[in-house]
């Protein structure tokens, strides 16, 4: 059971939206589709959901062509609000659940449970446009998950949420993953992606820059690993000892060093012998840094 996106390309007139993007998402994983605005994430998502047919390439889920599968398999939270503003929340969610194949009874039960879970039961009889932006986003999320899809595609799900609801949604996403849902998370929010994803695909200017597990991406940027040293002693002595080591940043008695090929243990030993060490850690580059490096440097 794997979601396989195999070398998809799509152009709209003269514009190439996606060019040969491919990646694999194992069942029950959260996979990040990362890229700047206009990189081709949304088109990729639309191809996965069969909203757009690709010019080349294909998408399959557990070996079967995704386009031929019942629509109930997929859940989708689009980037922009896609709900009826004048329709009541409960009625609206029941409609979307039934459109995805749920029976009237299951839809009714599902809506009740989920509204309760996200703490918006009291809004069930209100019209969507009367709700706050954050609550509307919760409703949009429910419209994507009510029918318990096998593959859930979330396009910027955290936009417009306050920190509390942000956390709530994160918990729900992790809960779905635990129950076996395969999740494709398209976002440019690197912090969220770092918290949630095991694997990522980096899309830049319509092309794939990287696809694979997050740790593999980190390894690619090992040279950006730094050492954080809380140190009272002679900094210059330390730097003279290791000519390759450079100071990346400095704040009072905290140093961030780029090791420049020197083993961290060597530096630690020298630091301990020449002064007092309060803190010593290796810091891997954040996904944000990696992203900027991949995208900005390309």
């Amino acid at each position, binding site marked *: 059971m794997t979601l396989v996106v195999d070398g998809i390309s799509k152009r709209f007139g003269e514009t190439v939206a996606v060019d040969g993007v491919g990646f694999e998402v194992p069942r029950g994983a959260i996979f990040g589709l990362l890229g700047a605005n206009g990189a081709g994430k949304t088109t990729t998502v639309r191809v996965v959901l069969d*909203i757009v047919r690709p010019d080349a390439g294909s998408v399959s889920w557990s070996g079967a062509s995704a386009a031929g599968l019942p629509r109930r398999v997929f859940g989708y939270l689009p980037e922009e*609000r*896609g*709900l009826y503003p004048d329709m009541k929340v409960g009625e609206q969610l029941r409609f979307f659940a039934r459109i*995805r194949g749920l029976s009237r009874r299951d839809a009714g039960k599902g809506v009740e449970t989920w509204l309760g879970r996200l703490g918006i039961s009291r809004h069930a009889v209100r019209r969507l446009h009367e709700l706050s932006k954050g609550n509307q986003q919760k409703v949009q999320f429910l419209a994507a998950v009510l029918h318990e899809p096998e593959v859930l595609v979330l396009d910027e799900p955290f936009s417009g949420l306050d920190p509390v609801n942000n956390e709530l949604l994160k918990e729900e996403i992790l809960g779905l993953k635990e129950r076996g849902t395969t999740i494709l998370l398209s976002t440019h929010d690197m912090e969220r992606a770092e918290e949630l994803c095991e694997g990522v695909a980096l899309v830049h200017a319509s092309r794939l820059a990287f696809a694979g597990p997050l740790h593999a991406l980190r390894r690619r940027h090992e040279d950006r690993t730094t050492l954080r040293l809380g140190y009272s002693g002679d900094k210059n002595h330390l730097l003279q000892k290791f000519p390759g080591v450079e100071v990346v940043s400095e704040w009072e008695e905290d140093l961030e060093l780029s090791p420049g090929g020197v083993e961290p243990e060597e530096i630690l030993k020298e630091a301990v012998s020449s002064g007092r060490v309060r803190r010593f850690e290796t810091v891997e580059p954040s996904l944000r840094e990696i992203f900027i490096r991949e995208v900005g440097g390309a």
Partner: protein
Amino acid sequence: MRNVWLIAQREYLQRVRARTFRIVTAIGFVLVLALAFTPSIMDSLDTVTGGSTIAVVDPGKDISPTLRAALPAELPNGDPRTKIVSVGSREAAERGVEGGEYAGVLIPENQRGTSPSFVYRSPRPGFEAEDLREALGGIVAERRLAEEGLDPGEIAGVLGPPDLNVVATGDAPTGEEYASRFGVVYAFGFVLYLGLIMYGNMVAMGVIAEKSTRITELMTAAVKPTEQMTGKLLGVGLLSLTQFGIWALAGLISLLLGRLRGGEGLELLAVPPATLLLFLFFFALGFLLYASIFAGLGSLLSRVEDAQALMAPFTMLLLTGFVLTIIAMGEPDSAVARIGSLIPFFTPMVMFARIELGDPAIWEVILGITALTATTAAAIWAASKLYKKGVLMYGKGPTLLKAAKLLK
């Protein structure tokens, strides 16, 4: 099919609850009721205001009885429309006019010779003056003929209308039947036109709104575009039937009320069931034709403002059809009406008028309906094709020409 039904259901329920729909339906309901009672209301109004009393200065009562007989027109309640009262003196008559008792005074002046003269004095001479002129003309002519020595039978023969027997040789309704049908067809033709415009636009606006609120994207991930469109058409179509049903109910109620009151004058507005069925048939085909075109074009747009330009040609077609219908109502079997009834975009309205008021050949009816059905099928096909392509088209809408190219 399940999805089509779900979408139609949602569409219908949302719209049937909308305030505008309720208001328009209620206004139509009241209007139909009012229309049915219009004749009797007009009658009572006429009874109160339509009659006038004329004083004739006629101490010898020479002319009053003849004049009375020459003014046979009656008010709805049976009173004479122009009441003649003979008065002894001019002064008394003038006083009556001042007091508002009489509308005017008729004073015979020179009554000798072959051209007697009269004076009619009134603060505001109205219709009654014309009636008087006509009545007096008849009386004077009669008197002259009598003086020439003709007997009453001969006089009647000279003054009476010639005997013209009108024989209808076609199936088209004639005379009173034509007049009563004319009113019905006019009302139905108007509702047909308004309904097609209103519900066609409703579909277009709904499609554009779903695109601008990006619902289309979420829907397309779950439901085929063709199903979305079919559901929408079905939902709005059912909505229109609901509205017509409620209005028909108003018609039925007024009919029953009329019967209960021993209804005179209601016959004029009684709608034969066949007419209603024919109306529904042509409305259904016309709605599918125009609404699917509007839906297909609407799906290419993401802003309501762009709709006008793209749909204008088809709105113009509808208007042309309506104008042709009015022409066809006057001359149901004229060349213009015949050609119009065979052009699919006009068929629903023009053919309806022709069948009701004229005598179209059976082949014309079959050809018209066949062409209309084929065009409607083509329109639905084209619309679902546009719908598929239009789902993700955002920004400024295309021109009609570009839209046509998308069909390839």
